[in-house]
């Protein structure tokens, strides 16, 4: 006697119903944590042990090793300034439109102190008191 087994074909299905949920959860996470950097100047930062987190939307002044200066008000993309008078006018504009805003000096550690001093003096002249010197963590 031949016994015939009736086999039911098993369909190979990957359950993907929850995939969209997971994906949207991840999107939400990235949307909340994303911050678009307004300044991407390539500098070699000095290292320090003491560090404080800088304020969000702080204005950034970047100084490169070859003494190039870029400035951003913290909202718009940073722009290269070659003229010191222009830098001062931008500083004044930021101080007027965003009083009390923190200023970050993102200076390359190889840059001569005189370039930092130029910016520092200009900031003091314009009444900027809330300054943070950008560093990377030592060790």
């Amino acid at each position: 006697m031949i016994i015939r087994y009736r086999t039911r074909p098993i369909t190979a299905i990957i359950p993907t119903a929850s995939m969209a949920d997971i994906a949207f959860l991840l999107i939400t996470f990235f949307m909340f944590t994303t911050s678009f950097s307004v300044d991407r100047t390539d500098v070699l930062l000095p290292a320090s042990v003491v560090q404080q987190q800088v304020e969000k939307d702080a204005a950034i002044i970047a100084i490169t090793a070859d003494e190039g200066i870029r400035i951003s008000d913290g909202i718009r993309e940073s722009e290269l300034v070659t003229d010191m008078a222009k830098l001062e006018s931008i500083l004044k504009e930021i101080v007027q439109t965003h009083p009390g805003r923190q200023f970050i000096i993102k200076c390359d550690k190889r840059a001569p102190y005189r370039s930092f001093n130029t910016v520092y003096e200009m900031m003091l002249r314009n009444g900027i008191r809330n300054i943070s010197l950008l560093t990377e963590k030592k060790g």
Partner: protein
Amino acid sequence: MKSRISLRGKLSSEVPTSSMADIAFLLITFFMVTTVFTAIHGIDYGLPKKDASANIKPQESVYIHLMASGEITLDFVPVSSMEQLAAYIKGKMEQTQGRKPVILRTDPEVPYGMTVEVLDVLKQLDIQNISIPTQTDIELWKDYFRD
């Protein structure tokens, strides 16, 4: 002739969601590529208000001078290491209950990184009263800053 309309074929009410995951993953990829997780850190250098600042003579403070030659002098005496610098300032601060202001003068040719290194030592010692004179200040107060 009687005609019969068959109502057997059911219309399913379904929202097509097959492409939703594709769109979602595309968005994830975008955010993953553009996200920067670096929280920006730095050394706070809060300055007093203009009217609150006072002129301090190097003689009345701890006076650090970073020279163009790479040499560091502390109260006009050369120091060889950051540890020596930290130990001296710590001693001075203990004597004066931390009231002595620290002046950090840097020559224009000195790399900026060196200034931050010294500033970091001062911040580690929790010194609140740090003054970084500008080159204009130094020019104006030549007699005070004479080594």
